[in-house]
């Protein structure tokens, strides 16, 4: 069976198991915590391995390889952060609802930087490729929608956090960093989704499409997490966790499709 098919099946399995456990709350808080911490570790590890394989497939150290390398480094940092978070919560029994930020948050924040660089490199490389950027009217519509998203995040998330006198300065920094960092990721991801739509059924853009969708899932979960966590309403085992797992696996799928695409060039007659 092709690796892409296997990974799709794995994604489906993770989502079904994840949703079943979270929605039914069948197995107790300890199991919820274990699943909530273990699944992102597994999914991020899968993503790391897939992206590593993709980076290795590019033989020459060129712009494209560096862009994928940046994404790989970012996801490696996310994986380390997930392991750290799980270790703190499960092994050291740190109450993550009370302790914020933790070491995991520092690592996640650093991870945003190479991810952003990688996505921007892809868009920049595409602009130089000579392929069309699409209909500028679409960007004209996208712009205000993204501004609307930015406004909503500022009004409902950032301003209340800034005004909150009960939150410490360092916690405030991280509560603010996550949504701002997410916007820096989601904007190029949305542009990539549009660009890849220009290729219709062409398979060359499929890896990018999956990467972009993966980061969009991430961002949605992250923004919801930031809001709920600041309100003190986020606990491990929240349904939004599924978004992160889906995000990681979609990013991994992007890597595997990229590998298969490069390998298929050897078979083209």
């Amino acid at each position: 069976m092709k690796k892409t098919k296997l990974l799709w099946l794995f994604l489906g399995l993770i989502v079904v198991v994840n949703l079943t456990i979270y929605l039914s709350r069948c197995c107790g808080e300890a199991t919820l915590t274990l699943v909530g911490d273990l699944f992102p570790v597994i999914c991020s590890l899968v993503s790391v391995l897939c992206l590593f394989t993709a980076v290795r497939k590019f033989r020459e150290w060129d712009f494209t390889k560096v862009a994928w390398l940046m994404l790989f480094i970012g996801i490696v940092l996310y994986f380390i952060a997930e392991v750290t978070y799980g270790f703190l919560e499960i092994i050291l029994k740190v109450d993550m609802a009370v302790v914020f930020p933790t070491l995991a948050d520092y690592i996640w924040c650093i991870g945003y930087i190479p991810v952003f660089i990688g996505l921007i490199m892809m868009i920049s490389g595409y602009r130089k490729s000579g392929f069309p950027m699409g209909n500028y009217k679409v960007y004209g519509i996208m712009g205000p929608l993204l501004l609307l998203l930015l406004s909503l995040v500022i009004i409902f998330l950032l301003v209340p956090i800034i005004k909150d006198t009960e939150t410490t300065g360092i916690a405030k920094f991280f509560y603010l960093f996550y949504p701002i960092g997410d916007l820096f990721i989601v904007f190029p991801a949305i542009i990539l989704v549009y660009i890849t739509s220009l290729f219709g059924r062409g398979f060359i853009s499929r890896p990018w499409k999956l990467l972009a969708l993966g980061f969009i899932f991430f961002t949605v979960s992250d923004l919801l997490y930031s809001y709920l966590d600041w309100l003190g309403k986020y606990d491990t085992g929240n349904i939004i966790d599924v978004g992160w797992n889906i995000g990681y696996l979609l990013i991994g799928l992007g890597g595997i499709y990229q590998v298969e695409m490069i390998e298929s060039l050897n078979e083209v007659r």
Partner: protein
Amino acid sequence: MKVYNNVCAQRIYELLAPMIGDLMARGTIRSKANFIGLTEETISSGDLPRLAAEIKKGLVVFLGSDGAEKLAMKISQIC
């Protein structure tokens, strides 16, 4: 599905269309042929290396230099 009278153009199209989609493939062949002073229907086997080099530039961002070079080699020998 586009059909060209020119054999070289048709084979390049059949190679590119599954990769970049029908519209992009047609647009790429037209724009790159025009860039080197040709039309889609006047491409000959002698023009293929130049045409392949131009097409390669656009594909590097997706395939990397090595992958794009492999594809360019296939295009330069396609007819």
